């Protein structure tokens, strides 16, 4: 929610909320479940951490309802690091979001990794001062989230699998459709808005700028420096790594290698150098064998 103070300071405006996403570009945002892991992430050069009780791979394994994390652990992680701290709320659970805002986190992820609280509505994100990131699998889904006030989009991928294939599918879908829409003439725009089920002014903005109105990051399945390089070359502007770091054999060096890969994503010699001797990556999952497809959550 945008407000102006007595001293003329405007907080919570779209510019201010999207501004932090701009500052995270080219960086890596890491899932952490303890203050110690948050320190490892910061030491490796993470630009932000996502504080949660279980990484997606464990949520997938344990089953049951996944909810917002305990405020105590979020506060503990905030105190452990100086970089921005994000936390997840369930899709549509605006009271979890209110609690996270009261905890003064820097970004809220309205996330399909948690069990949805509303099967028709996402959170009205304009009502908050804290900015939101939301997942998307397609351009239409991304624009719907932006129309609700999301200030950053991340392609969903399939969280907790260590399998990059879904992230690639979603990025290619979003960016491929941006390229197609950008060539549309003024009459075709209306049909695009209908097909995408997205507001016409946002579709027009994509045509005018050739990009989303907010930054596009990638999440879901990144496990190696090469994965980070792949999604960045495909057009992602930064990378979320969930289970891929702390479910690997040696998290610290792998985290640092993924950070260096996100910066030097076009240089195969550097990617080769940072990929050496990192130990076992997280064990991955075939998408076809999954009981639950997290990416299907969200409307």
């Amino acid at each position: 929610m945008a407000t102006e103070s007595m001293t003329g300071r405007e907080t919570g405006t779209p510019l201010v909320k999207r501004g932090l996403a701009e500052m995270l570009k080219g960086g890596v945002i890491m899932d952490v479940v303890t203050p110690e892991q948050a320190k490892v992430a910061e030491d490796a050069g993470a630009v932000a951490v996502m504080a949660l009780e279980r990484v997606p791979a464990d949520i997938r394994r344990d089953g049951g309802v996944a909810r917002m994390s305990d405020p105590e652990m979020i506060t503990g992680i905030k105190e452990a690091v100086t970089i921005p701290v994000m936390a997840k709320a369930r899709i549509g659970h605006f009271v979890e979001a209110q609690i996270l805002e009261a905890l003064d986190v820097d970004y809220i992820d309205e996330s399909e990794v948690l069990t949805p609280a509303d099967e028709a509505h996402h959170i009205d994100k304009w009502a908050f001062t804290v900015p939101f990131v939301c997942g998307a699998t397609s351009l239409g889904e991304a624009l719907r989230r932006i129309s609700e006030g999301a200030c950053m989009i991340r392609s969903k991928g399939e969280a907790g699998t260590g399998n990059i294939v879904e992230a690639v599918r979603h990025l290619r879908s979003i960016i491929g459709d941006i390229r197609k829409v950008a060539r549309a003439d003024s009459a075709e725009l209306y049909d695009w808005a209908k097909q995408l089920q997205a507001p016409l002014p946002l579709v027009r903005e994509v045509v005018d700028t050739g990009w989303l109105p907010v930054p596009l990051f990638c999440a879901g399945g990144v496990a190696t420096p090469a994965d980070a390089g792949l999604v960045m070359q495909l057009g992602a502007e930064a990378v979320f790594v969930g289970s891929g770091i702390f479910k690997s054999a040696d998290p610290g060096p792998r985290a640092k290698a993924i950070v260096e890969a996100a910066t030097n994503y076009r240089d195969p010699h550097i990617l080769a150098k940072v990929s050496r001797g990192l130990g076992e990556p997280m064990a991955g999952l075939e998408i076809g064998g999954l009981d639950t497809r997290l990416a299907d959550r969200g409307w």
Partner: protein
Amino acid sequence: MKIGVLALQGAFGLHERVFNRIGVTAFQVRTAQELAEADRLVIPGGESTAISKLLDANGLTAPLADRLAGGLPVLGTCAGLILLAAEVVDGYPGQHCFGAVNVAVRRNGYGRQSESFRAKIDVGGWEPAFPGVFIRAPVVESAGPEVEVLAELAGRPVLCRQGAAVVSCFHPELAEDDRVHRWFAELQ
């Protein structure tokens, strides 16, 4: 003239876009060789801890210190200010500060994201005021006598110059206003 934009992490793309818009050639700097080709340099906003580590990883720390000592004109915004400062109060251990501008800064001194803001900045002689966007911005706690304070907000310096180095707490690359970039590109 070619302006290099340090492209390790952060809002480097936005700076590049502003320069391109005003007809100044800008390019991304990730290696020592690219740094050597820059006539001027921008260190963008981002996370100063991450940029500091990536300077080491990419072998840029010593070459950057050399270029700065040689009087390379440089613009540092937000994280760039932190890296160009002389001292980081309560800084992250091992974080670089190159001392191009004799200021002491405190990271996130303006607060967390909930306190990020936009405000009108009165830069001497500029009409209208400049729209300053502050994102988890650093506070300048003190400035030495050799530092020229070009703008203040609530009694704290927010735009400073020392010789060829210009630093701001705010993000001119986020504003729809290119006066800071034009001024830096023409700085004598």
